[in-house]
């Protein structure tokens, strides 16, 4: 039965699609987009199918090729996995559709490689989420990352250097992770996550485990751009082609945070990560610093995309802080923010892509009058901005709500203050944009007392606007569906598993 093979199809369909696209790039470039779309549609289909199955039957253990776990690779699919899978697959698909126009314009002669790398990168990300094997995760991590470096390097003239910088940092991060996994393997003789959890339980006092944990976490922090390890991110995402930045900005950091949550929940167990190590205080302080630093640095930017990248740095702080509060509410907030932030970042970067597409400039001051010229794009940007600020009923409010609540429960008031401060700074950030876009006509003086003023519209093509509006609408829909998401997926994910939280 095909529905039983969803975990494998999820990875194999886009992987095959990527290979076919690479071929088509030589033979018949017109086919690249349809192939990519089909591949990702297959991924979305499998992810939604898995979501429905897990919602009905509970977690699934899938053995790749039928090999039993210690030898073969197991895919562990629980409530958290399916939630993130659906987000990753749909973000990738929506962005692919939205980016077609820019890809065809910017990558005229490299459509084949571009689409192939795009789909390959998504394959890697989906695999990372679905795998239940620590070493397999590393392999997929590198697949996603390597194709990502290449995608970024296809951007503006400064992109190759930014990508090289990212490559160095990313490789260090991945190596740290591999080092940690190596230590775990020496200690336990297994790479399967479920097995690892069982065999690590007696080792909680061991210094080797401590080193493994720290090395893995620091490696992941590097890959997720957790302040102060964020240096590679702004350049890489700013100079990347629009299509690549709006794929990677919503997904890469979020998937790394997912890996961190997954390892803490299913391998090290919360009892070890929070109960034995007691690093919460330190990490939550770091996260608070990340939030404030990200927001302040965003404030200093004149480049729209760069401003958005610093917002990502702040948002990573939200999630890391939420996780390390070490409580159920905190993790709920972090996971909820993970999926909300993916949608918000996607909307922001799609809007930015539309603006860059039309104005050919990333500078904030060139946004003047853009509400009149590009009303739909700006509507999307406004929705995303309000979600980031945390205005209900947009989804950003609700994850912030859980995080605030968790911070209060845990008595971590500096985190509470950082969350509120960053909301206020985002309000300044976005209203600065809106003010310029609404009230400063691109040409001529303000039209006080001059009757109706008509300006020519120069909206992005529908193929870019419609996906943007879909993404923007999802911000409200996800906000209103918060209770369903939390009770249907996040809480079951947190209460199951070896280290269920109280």
């Amino acid at each position, binding site marked *: 039965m095909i529905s039983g093979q969803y975990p494998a199809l999820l990875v194999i369909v886009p992987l095959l699609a990527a290979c076919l696209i690479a071929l088509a790039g030589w033979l018949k470039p017109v086919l690249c987009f349809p192939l990519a779309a089909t591949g990702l549609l297959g991924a979305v289909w499998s992810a939604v199918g898995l979501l429905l199955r897990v919602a009905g039957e509970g977690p699934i253990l899938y053995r790749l090729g039928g090999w039993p776990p210690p030898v073969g690779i197991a895919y562990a699919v629980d409530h958290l996995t399916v939630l993130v899978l659906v987000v990753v697959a749909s973000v990738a698909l929506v962005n692919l559709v939205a980016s077609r126009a820019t890809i065809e314009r910017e990558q005229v002669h490299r459509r084949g490689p571009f689409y192939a790398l795009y789909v390959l990168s998504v394959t890697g990300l989906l695999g990372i989420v679905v795998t239940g094997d620590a070493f397999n995760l590393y392999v997929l991590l590198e697949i996603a990352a390597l194709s990502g470096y290449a995608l970024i390097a296809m951007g503006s003239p400064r992109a190759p250097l930014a990508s090289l910088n990212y490559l160095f940092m990313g490789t260090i991060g991945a190596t740290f992770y591999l080092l940690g996994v190596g230590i775990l393997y020496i200690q336990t003789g297994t790479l399967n996550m479920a097995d690892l959890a069982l065999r690590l339980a007696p080792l909680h006092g061991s210094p080797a485990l401590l080193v493994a944990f720290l090395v893995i976490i620091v490696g992941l922090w590097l890959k997720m751009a957790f302040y102060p390890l964020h240096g590679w991110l702004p350049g890489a995402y700013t100079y990347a082609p629009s299509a690549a930045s709006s794929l990677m900005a919503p997904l890469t950091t979020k998937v790394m945070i997912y890996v961190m949550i997954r390892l803490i929940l299913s391998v090290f167990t919360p009892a070890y990560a929070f109960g034995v190590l007691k690093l919460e205080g330190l990490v939550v302080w770091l996260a608070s610093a990340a939030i404030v630093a990200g927001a302040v640095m965003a404030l200093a930017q004149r480049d729209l995309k760069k401003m958005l990248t610093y917002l990502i740095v702040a948002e990573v702080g939200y999630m890391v802080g939420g996780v390390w509060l070490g409580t159920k509410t905190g993790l709920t907030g972090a996971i909820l923010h993970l999926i909300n932030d993916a949608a918000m970042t996607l909307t922001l970067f799609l809007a930015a892509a539309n603006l860059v597409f039309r104005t050919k400039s990333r500078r904030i001051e060139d946004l003047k009058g853009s509400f009149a010229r590009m009303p739909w794009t700006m509507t999307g940007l406004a929705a995303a901005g309000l979600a980031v*600020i945390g*205005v209900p009923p947009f989804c950003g409010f609700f994850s912030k709500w859980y995080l*605030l609540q968790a911070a*209060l*429960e845990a008595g971590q008031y500096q985190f509470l203050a950082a969350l509120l401060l960053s*909301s206020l700074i985002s*309000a300044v950030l976005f209203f600065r944009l809106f003010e310029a876009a609404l*009230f400063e006509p691109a040409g001529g003086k303000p*039209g*006080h007392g001059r009757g109706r003023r008509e300006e020519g519209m120069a909206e992005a093509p529908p193929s870019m606007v419609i996906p943007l509006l879909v993404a923007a609408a999802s911000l409200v829909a996800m906000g209103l569906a918060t209770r369903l998401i939390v009770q249907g997926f996040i809480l079951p994910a947190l209460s199951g598993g070896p280290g269920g939280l109280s």
Partner: protein
Amino acid sequence: MEPLVSIRPLLAVLVSLAAVPVLVSARNRNVREGWTFLAAVAKLVLVASLLPPVLAGREVVYTLVQVLPGIAIAFKVDPLGLLFALVSSSLWIVTSAFSIGYMRGLNEHSQTRYYAFFAVALSATIGVAFSANLFTLYLFYEVLSLATYPLVVHHQDGEAKLGGRKYLTYILGTSIGLVLPAMVVCYLLSGTLDFQPQGFIAGTVGPLGGTLLVLAFVFGFAKAGVMPFHAWLPAAMIAPTPVSALLHAVAVVKVGAFSILRVLTGVLGTGWLARMDLGLVVAWIASFTIIVSSLIALSQDGLKRRLAFSTIGQLSYIILGAALLSPRGLTGAFSHIAMHAFGKITLFMCAGAIFVATGKTHISQMAGLGRRMPLTFLAFLAGSLSVIGLPPCGGFISKWNLLLGTLEASSPALMVVLLSSSFLNACYFLPVVFRAFFHPPFDRACQGPVAEAPPWALVPPVLTGLASVALFFYPRPFLDLARMAATTLGGG
């Protein structure tokens, strides 16, 4: 009595929102303004249709969606909410008429944007009025903040942008910085945010925490202009006058005061406040604002700025009345929402009519203008008397109840505050009228035969001026609703 489940509260909120797409796509300004009127009338009809069940003692409830465990977007129409909704929706009709006169008279730009955001703002106002819990209230409060921002910056010149920035800084800064954490605390303490007649946090928080909560809410709803968070109001007077009239004398500022009333009664509870002696704290904060803002108003020459400072003082009357925690005080506070709204909107629309007819904005330039615009200044007189609280105007009724409330609460000092403020109100309003009628003309524009503003700008203030007088003789249904609300909410 069993609450009545009905979708009407939701419809009343949404009707103006539904008009927005039509407004925006209308090619012709007559069509556009026709739709504005239609939406305004439909809104009033929907709100008024809720009056019979509420007067009969039933609450009308509707739950839209359960967003978080224990938190829903839900509506509940009780006497207090209905009172406020009735005031806002009836005054929207008058203001729409005035907007047409004003905006066409001055040939303003971007009128479509103006009408669209006005409609959104009204939706949000009714949403606040009908909120069944603190979360829903916060949601609509924020929608209102955002929807009024483009209205404040309408002139889109440097000064307007500065005014808009100040507006957002104060309003969003306090709502995110103070109300949001206070709301999270309330939810953590009690697991609910649903308004209840005697509040829901009694017994969950000590004196220090309680005081902090009260302060966070009173200052956090900065739309109420409690000092020191009042400075956005004069700055926002840069908006076109109809905006100032409806939003900054009625909807926005009253939403602030209403939110504070809701929290004092529905979240904290009058009984709890009395036991904690916190009513007095709030009362003195409000008293300070009342006196200081009245003194500042005295020194203002810009008519709209004087009105703005007067509004700041009058809003604190409402808060003071609620803080008295006595049935009379609450009745006074609730009815002052209505009475002050009619009085103050008259004053603002008069200021607008004067500006449309003569371009004058400063009181010193209006000497002798009364002989030229007698109807406008008579309306101004009626509005002034109502705001001062003198018969035969509606304001007398609410201030009378407030004064009785201070006696019930046996705090003569607060009575002195109210009386001296009324005296100050008279000092800054009556000379305006006196100069207009009895001083020699300031310049040529103040001379000549009677020449009022165009009818669209003249009739609305005259109507609301008449209404201010009529409310003295016939204060129902506002007073009935205020009394009912005071009985249920202050019965502890």
